C-alpha cells in the first residue's frame, strides 16, 4: 500500500481509538455546540415582545380594539392585564418593561372625538427596550386610528417588502448558529488531536516518518471530522425537531455544513500546532467563536452594520457559511455576494487553512 495512504489510514484509526477513550470530551463538545443554539435563542427572545402590564380602567369597546392593536404592533408587546398596584410592584422589581394605563372613559371620549391622555410608565433601565416601547406605541395608535377610521389623518405607510414572508428572529439566529456549532465541534476536536501530539512528545517522531508530517495529522483530522459530522448531525436534529426548522434546500445545507466541518478542522490543526497544549484549546475556540459569530452576519445582513465591519467580516469563513446556510434554510440572500461565490470563497478558505496548518505543523515538528 502507498505509504501516504497507509499513514493516513493508520493515524485516522489511532484517532478513532483515542476519541473512543475520551468520550467525555466528545460529549462535552456536543453539549457546548448545542449551548450556542440556546444562547442565541435567548438573545432572540429579548429582541421583541416586551412584557408590558395593561391596566384597563375603561374596558369599553374602543379600549378593547386599542389593546388588540397593542398586541399586534410589530411583535412589540407581551400584554399582561393586571391591576395597577401589582403592576407598580412588578415594575419596581424589574419584572416589566412598562405599564400602559387606559383611563376610565376612554371609549366615551373616543366616541365624542375627544383626545385622551394615555399614561405609560417605562422602566427605562434598558435603552433597547425603552426605544422599542417609544416607537411601538405610535405604531399601535395609528393602526387603531386606521381600524376605527378616524378622520383628519393625512399620512399612512405603504409598505413593500422585498421578501414575501417574514422570518422570525430566533429561527434566523439558530440557522446561523449551526455554523458556530460546526466551528466549535470541529475546531476543538482537531486542535486537541494535533496539540496532543506535541504535549505527549510524539510530534518529534513525525519528523522521522517517511511521509510529510502533515499526513498523519491529516489522517487524525479526517477521523475528528467524521466524528464532528456525527456530532453536528445531533445539533442539526435539535434545530430541526426543537426549533422546527425545515430547510428549503437540504442538500445545500448539508454540503455547507460538511464543508464547514472540514474547513474548521483545518483551522483547528493550525491552532493545535500553534498552541501545542490541549488545556486552553476548548476555551480559546469558545472565546474566538462568539465574537467571530457576531461579525459574520449571524443576526442580520452584515453590511447593515456599516462597510468597515462588513469588509472585516470577509476575513471570516463564518460570514460565507452563514450566507449560504440562510439561503439553504429559508431562501434568504443575506450577503451582497451570490451563493455560488460564497461557496467558492469557502473552498478557498479550506485550501488556505490547510496550507497554514502544513506550515505550522512543519515548523512545530522541525523544532
Amino acid at each position, binding site marked *: 500500500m502507498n505509504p501516504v495512504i497507509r499513514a493516513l489510514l493508520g493515524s485516522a484509526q489511532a484517532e478513532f481509538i483515542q476519541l473512543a477513550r475520551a468520550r467525555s470530551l466528545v460529549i462535552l463538545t456536543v453539549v457546548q455546540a448545542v449551548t450556542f443554539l440556546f444562547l442565541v435563542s435567548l438573545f432572540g427572545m429579548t429582541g421583541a415582545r416586551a412584557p408590558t402590564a395593561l391596566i384597563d*380602567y375603561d374596558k369599553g*369597546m374602543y379600549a378593547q380594539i*386599542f389593546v388588540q392593536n397593542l398586541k399586534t404592533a410589530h411583535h412589540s408587546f407581551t400584554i399582561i392585564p393586571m391591576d395597577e398596584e401589582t403592576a407598580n410592584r412588578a415594575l419596581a422589581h424589574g419584572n416589566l418593561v412598562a405599564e400602559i394605563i387606559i383611563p376610565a372613559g376612554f371609549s366615551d371620549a373616543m366616541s365624542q372625538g375627544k383626545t385622551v391622555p*394615555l399614561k405609560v410608565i417605562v422602566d427605562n433601565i434598558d435603552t433597547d427596550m425603552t426605544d422599542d416601547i417609544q416607537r411601538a406605541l405610535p405604531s399601535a395608535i395609528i393602526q387603531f386610528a386606521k*381600524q376605527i377610521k378616524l378622520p383628519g389623518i393625512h399620512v399612512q*405607510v405603504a409598505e413593500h417588502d*422585498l421578501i414575501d414572508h417574514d422570518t422570525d428572529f430566533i429561527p434566523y439566529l439558530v440557522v446561523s448558529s449551526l455554523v458556530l456549532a460546526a466551528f466549535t465541534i470541529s475546531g476543538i476536536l482537531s486542535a486537541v488531536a494535533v496539540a496532543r501530539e506535541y504535549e505527549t512528545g510524539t510530534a518529534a517522531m513525525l519528523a522521522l516518518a517517511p511521509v510529510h508530517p502533515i499526513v498523519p495529522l491529516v489522517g487524525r483530522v479526517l477521523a475528528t471530522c467524521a466524528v464532528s459530522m456525527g456530532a453536528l448531525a445531533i445539533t442539526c436534529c435539535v434545530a430541526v425537531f426543537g426549533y422546527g426548522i425545515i430547510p428549503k434546500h437540504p442538500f445545500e445545507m448539508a454540503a455547507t455544513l460538511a464543508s464547514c466541518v472540514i474547513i474548521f478542522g483545518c483551522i483547528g490543526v493550525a491552532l493545535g500546532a500553534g498552541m501545542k497544549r490541549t488545556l486552553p484549546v476548548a476555551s480559546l475556540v469558545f472565546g474566538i467563536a*462568539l465574537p467571530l459569530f457576531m461579525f459574520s452576519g449571524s443576526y442580520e445582513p452584515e453590511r447593515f452594520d456599516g462597510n468597515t465591519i462588513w469588509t472585516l467580516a470577509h476575513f471570516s469563513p463564518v460570514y460565507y457559511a452563514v450566507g449560504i446556510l440562510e439561503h439553504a434554510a429559508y431562501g434568504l440572500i443575506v450577503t451582497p455576494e451570490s451563493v455560488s461565490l460564497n461557496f467558492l470563497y469557502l473552498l478557498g478558505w479550506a485550501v488556505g487553512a490547510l496550507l497554514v496548518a502544513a506550515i505550522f505543523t512543519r515548523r512545530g515538528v522541525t523544532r
Partner: protein
Amino acid sequence: MIRGMWTLASLDLLLWRRMPMAIASALIPPVGMTALLVVLSMAVTQQPVALVVEGRGSNTEKMASIIQSDDDAYLLTKTDMQTADRMLADQEVAAVIIVPKDFDDQVNSLGVANVILKLNNVDIDFADDIRRSVDRSVAQFDAPSYSLEGEKGGEAGEGGGAPANSDEKAKPDEGAKPEGAGKESGDTSEAQSAKPDPTAAENPYLVNIKETDLRETNVEWLNYQVVPALVLLVLSVGLMGTALLCAQDIERKTARYLVLTPQDSWTLVAGRLLGGFIASILFLIPAIGWCVWTKTINPPPSHWPALLAIFAATALCASGLGAILGTALTGSRTIALASSVISTYLFFLGGGFTNIAFLPQWMRTLSSFIPTRYAIDGMRQALFYSTLDGVGKDLAILCATAILMCAIGSFSVRRSWVASE
C-alpha cells in the same frame, strides 16, 4: 487551623500562577463573552435607511424633516431613487423610505398621502424596528406630540399640528363603530379618568401618550449588558481554578500526602476552597477597578457592601462547584471544557445574557433554580436601581447555595484524597 488553611491556599495560588495556560483558559470565555455583548450592544441602535424625497412643497419638506430628525432610529442617507434601489439591492441599507411626488397634492386635497417603505425584511428583528420607527415618523406628521420629546412631555416635535387647510374634527367613523360602542364601561370609582387635556396639541389620533420614566437617566445598553460579565469572570476563574487543582492532586498523586500530613485534612480542604475563592477575587479586583475608572459601574456608596457580598458569595459558590467538578472528572482538558460549558450555562440561565424577567414564564421558572440568577439580579439591583429591594433575598439564596456547594465540594475532595491513599 487558619495557618494550615492559608498554607494550602497560598500554595494553590502559587501553582495557579505557574499555569499560564490554565489562567488563559479561565479568562478567554469571559473576555469572549464581553466582546460578544459589546458587539450586540452596538447592533441594537440605528438602522441604515435611505430617504428619497421625490416631491416638493411644504408638506413634503415637513415629512422629510421629521424623518431626518429621528437620528435615534435611522442612520439616514438622503439620495435619489436609482441610488436608493441599488443600495437596497447591495444591502448598504435595510430599507428605503420614499416621500412620493404627489405627497403634497394628496395632503392638500385632504386625502391620505402615502409614505412608501421598501423594506428588506430578512428577519423581523431589524425589520420591526424600522416598521415601528417609520410608523412613529408618519404619526408625527399629524400629531407632533409623538416625537420622542413629545412622548416624554416636552415640547412638541417639529412641524406642529395638522397641515394647512385642515378643519376636520376628529371622531371615529360611526360606520366603523361596533356594537356596544359608547356604552358606559368599567368601574371608575378609583380609576384614572380620561379627562381631556386642554393644553394638549390637536391630535387626530385622539390618544396623547404621557410617558413617565421610572428613573432619571437611561442606563446605557452597553453597561447593562456588559456588567454581568463580571459574574462570568468570577465563575470561570473560581470553577476552573479549583477544579484543575483538585484534579492535579489526583493525577500527580499528591493527594495521598495531603491526607498523611499531621494537619487536619478538613483544614486543608478548606484551604483548597479558599485558594479558589482568592483566585477569583484577585481577578475580579482589577476588573471592577477598570469598570469604576471607566464609569461602567457607578453604584451609590451605600450599595457597595451588598455588591461586594454578592461577588464574595458567587466566588464561594464557584469554588465549591469547582471542587465537585475536579473530583468528578479526570483530565485537565476535559475539566477545562466542562468548566467553560458549566460557567456559560450558569451565566446565561442566570440572566447574564439578558434580563430573565423579560423572558417567557418557563424560562423564568427554570432560571429560579440557578444560583447565578440571584447574583446577577442582585448585582443589577445594586448597580442600576436606587433601592436594594430584593437584594437581601438574593444574598440569602446565594449564601445558602455557597454553603451547600462548599460542603459537598469539601466532602468530594476529602473522599477523593482518601480514595487515592
